[in-house]
């Protein structure tokens, strides 16, 4: 090991002396610089700007007025907005649990297929919804699940089942949106899990088989622990996405009925862009960001005990 390190160091020293190395370094910095610029313009600056705006009252038209922490004080006493945090958390948890369990289940089933083309076919099929525009999917699903004219209720009626208020009752709307979000996002977790399951060392699986472990025991004691880092990654990404749920509820229910599907991002949009309270909308955005950071932190804390790194 020490010899290898010494060789690398020698190569680097030689390389530094090479005339073209400075040009390469500049090229490298330029490439990194582009990424940094991209992140700065589209992520860092908007976040900082939003943080700044959250201390102002601004209706776009008038000059911004500094209000200190008033927007935050208002947020923590604003019942409907606080409720939207609860709605978001509930829907996000449901989405993450379903997305992970169904995604893992499908991945395990597909992984057992030996034929490569079968696996490819399933991977493609489950991934396709992810490629569709969420707005288009939401409009389409809105028609499918319409109470009176929807195709879903039409076929249910053929079975003698009365019309279901998919999008016109509080629980129905939330559940339908969760199911649609899961259906559309499941391709992502599914592909991750399939790839991860394929990387489980075969010698470990063979050893388990020789020791007499059955399929379920192998799954829960060998495969899941070995792919747990992937599960953690999928859980973190899925939760971050779910906490920002906007398109489906906004297009399908406008946050209703009542406020049953009013997520935090819808509250933020309503306050900012509809009610012209950009400062307050920004405060909601910052608190949502903080909430996501805290929840993600908790996930990583839990991962210390639950995730197994090889």
């Amino acid at each position, binding site marked *: 090991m020490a010899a290898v390190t010494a060789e690398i160091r020698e190569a680097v020293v030689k390389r530094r002396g090479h005339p073209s190395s400075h040009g390469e370094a500049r090229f490298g910095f330029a490439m990194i610089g582009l990424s940094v610029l991209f992140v700065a313009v589209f992520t860092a600056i908007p976040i900082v700007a939003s943080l700044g705006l959250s201390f102002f009252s601004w209706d776009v038209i008038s000059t911004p007025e*500094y209000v200190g922490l008033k927007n935050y004080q208002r947020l923590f006493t604003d019942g409907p907005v606080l409720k939207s945090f609860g709605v978001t958390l509930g829907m996000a948890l449901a989405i993450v649990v379903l997305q992970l369990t169904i995604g893992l289940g499908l991945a395990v089933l597909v992984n057992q297929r030996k034929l490569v083309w079968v696996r490819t076919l399933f991977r493609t099929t489950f991934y396709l919804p992810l490629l569709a525009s969420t707005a288009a999917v939401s409009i389409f699903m809105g028609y499918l699940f319409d109470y009176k004219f929807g195709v879903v209720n039409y076929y249910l009626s053929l079975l003698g089942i009365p019309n279901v208020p998919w999008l016109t009752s509080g629980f129905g709307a939330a559940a339908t949106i969760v199911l649609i979000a899961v259906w559309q996002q499941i391709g992502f977790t599914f592909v991750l899990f399939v790839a991860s399951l394929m990387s489980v060392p075969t010698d470990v699986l063979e050893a388990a088989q020789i020791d007499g472990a059955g399929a379920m025991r192998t799954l829960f004691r060998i495969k899941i622990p070995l792919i747990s880092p992937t599960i953690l990654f999928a859980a973190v990404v899925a939760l971050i996405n779910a906490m920002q749920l906007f398109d489906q509820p906004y297009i399908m229910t406008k946050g209703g*009925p009542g406020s049953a599907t009013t997520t935090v991002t819808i509250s933020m949009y309503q306050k900012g862009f509809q009610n012209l309270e950009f400062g307050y909308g920004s405060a909601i955005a910052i608190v949502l960001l903080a909430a996501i950071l805290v929840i993600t932190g908790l996930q990583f804390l839990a991962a210390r005990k639950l995730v197994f790194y090889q």
Partner: protein
Amino acid sequence: MTGIHPPGGSLARRTLLKAGAGGLGLAALADLAACSQDGGGSSKSLKMLYFGEQAQATELQNRLQPQIAKLDATIKFEISAINGTDWNDFLAKVLTQIAAGTPPDIISVATEGLQLMASKELAVPLDDYVTKDLDALKEYFADIHPALVESMMYQGHLWELPDSFNAGNMFYSTELFQRAGVVPPSADWTLDDFEAAATKIAKFKGINAFGWVVRLWGSWTSFMYANNANLLEEGKYDGGDWLWNKAYAGDAAATGRKGGWKWGAPTANSEATVEALNYMIELTKKGLSPSPDVGGGGTLQGLFASNRIGMSIGGGFWAGGLTNAGMKNGSFDVTMFPKWKSQRHLFGAGGYAIFKSSKKKDLAWEVLKLLVKPETFDLVFPGNVTTPGRKSLVTAARYAKTGPKHWSVFYDTLTKHPDTAPIPAPPYYNALATALNQRTTQAISSGNAKAALDGLQSDLEKAAGAS
């Protein structure tokens, strides 16, 4: 009028310093945006914002350009379309565009946004321009119902020249009425007649007797108006005599007109308002009406055009809309909204205003006059997609191709029902519309109108307070 700080004023600068680095940077951006409102388009172009598709806007721009060139040969007329599901959406996007530093010279604004725009002094009052050109405009005012003009006034000043409107009348499918054996409704039909017709039509499988949309214009709010109720206390601003005494002298329809509608304290949970919303819940429970969608009404119009809805609230814009959706002339008709405690209708009007930041206000005024000329109307609104504000344009010839047979109902709403009033659109219209949508869906899904409207009352009180 509410005052606003001058962009970049010293007070603003002092307050900005308190914000720290992040806030300072952002607020500076905002301030820049506000300062750039002084621009009002480039010096060689006259910019107008239009609610619709860009293809239509470009077509309109090309049609009007030769006429604008007669006013000023060096000016290029540019119309930018803003797409949205409703006026709420349109307004939000307009304000974002203003914030981005690209305000227009002329803007087309409906009743929904008039008081917001006027209260924020985004536009200029047209009083002086109208007074200066009153002789030339007498023909225009003689042709425009004073109710439409009054709806474009705020705090005694005229902010827009109206060119169009839509009152909430009742459209019905003549085919479904015939199949159900229902006699076409007369203009003075009642709510009982309406329900009797709905009950007969609802017997057809897959057909809804009455369809509606959750929104401010032509929703359950039409029932509320017919029940002599409103979401806000009604009043009128003083003033406006400068216009009424000169432009409408001797016109009985102008009697009692003042300086614009003054929307007062919320009355969303008044007994009559609750009764109106309860009526809608009952219609749903009886199977006479499906749970409504929220928004612009495109789906509703499509369902009506495919003969799956017997009746719905529509204005003159439905004549063109239904025709464009494939309905044939004669397959639908229109009548007055049914009488409940009264036969009061609601309406929304459209018109044009001059942006305060425009550097070409005089030219913009000339364009405004051009836009409200009779010959311009069909350039702006081809195919009966709204009701002309000028009575002389509401003719049998106009509706010969599209229908409806009883097209005269559109203007008669204003002339025969003088208590007809604009939708309640105060300066905090956006917050009102958002709350109304939420609370209406809450009421329909829970079946409890009182609780939902108590909530709306609270929402509106907060919004009014903040405003």
